[in-house]
């Protein structure tokens, strides 16, 4: 029984978590610029996806393709995220975030406690996925790769994509349409199935 108190900041009653939720889990949706992270999160989220921005200070390192200017020391990193209520006690958050090496602090924050990650890839720019895959491996976060199929992108046999991305045999590879809820959902399910399988077969309880 809810008495739904009025709140003028947020009128949409679906904004808040069900009262019964006790546990929050998170999964990352990562990939290079323009690969469809925000779209993927938006297709699956039950709330209007939200965005947070952090100003990152960074010495040196190479910058975004978009930024173009060298020597810049601060940059704004946006993180889009959404939410899926799994059951009455559990909620899952999906965080879409950039995969650049230089946002180390952001990465630590995001990966801490994350279950795993969906790496979105684009067949036209597969090599741009290496950075983010490397970061996930550094943080010991298991992942599945989902090729976001763009209408004008060439299709390759799975074997060729695996080889181009240098995937381990156990790493799942799926094709999806990030705009489509069911398709994005299948990619997410593939990841979770993989995580569960990996955990129950390879990791022993401490």
């Amino acid at each position, binding site marked *: 029984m809810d008495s739904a108190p009025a709140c003028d900041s947020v009128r949409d009653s679906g904004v808040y978590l069900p009262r019964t939720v006790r546990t*929050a889990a998170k999964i990352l949706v990562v990939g290079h610029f323009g690969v469809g992270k925000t779209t993927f999160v938006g297709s699956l989220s039950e709330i209007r996806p939200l965005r947070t921005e952090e100003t990152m200070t960074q010495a040196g390192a190479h910058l975004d393709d978009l930024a173009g200017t060298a020597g810049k020391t601060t940059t704004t990193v946006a993180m889009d995220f959404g939410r899926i209520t799994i059951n009455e006690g559990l909620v899952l958050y999906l965080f879409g975030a950039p995969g650049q090496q230089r946002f180390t602090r952001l990465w630590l924050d995001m990966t*801490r406690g994350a279950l795993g990650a969906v790496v979105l890839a684009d067949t036209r720019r597969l090599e741009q996925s290496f950075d983010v895959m490397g970061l996930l491996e550094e943080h010991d976060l298991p992942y599945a790769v989902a090729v976001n199929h763009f209408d004008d992108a060439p299709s390759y046999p799975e074997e060729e994509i695996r080889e181009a991305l240098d995937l381990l045999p156990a790493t799942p590879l799926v094709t999806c349409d990030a705009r489509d809820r069911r398709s994005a959902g299948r990619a997410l399910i593939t990841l979770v199935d993989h995580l569960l399988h990996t955990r129950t077969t390879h990791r022993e309880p401490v």
Partner: protein
Amino acid sequence: MTPATPRRERGLVRPYVVTDGRSHPTRNTFDLVTLVMAHTDRPLAGLSPEKRRMMELCLGGALSVAEIAGHLALPVSVVKVLLGDLVDSGHLATRAPIPSAQLPEAQILQEVLDGLRARL
């Protein structure tokens, strides 16, 4: 004189002003998905405008740290500092996400899998 009260505009007040120059919260227990709940019986008088906005948002129901940042259009780092103060003053309570060390992760994963399959 004073312009119309800005609500969502960014950058009008610099984050370090909002936090009195602090960049770290009084406690280091906030994750992006830490769940935050408001105590309804605390007075809001005397709170800074940002803390008041945060309380008004949180009084509607439970939200994660990331959602609070998103709704208030404040950086997560700033939200964490403000949250720390509001927890210290008894205005807010938090429920930590499951600590990774004792995570019954297989169980969580199974629930997530079942939930996703049922919904999609």
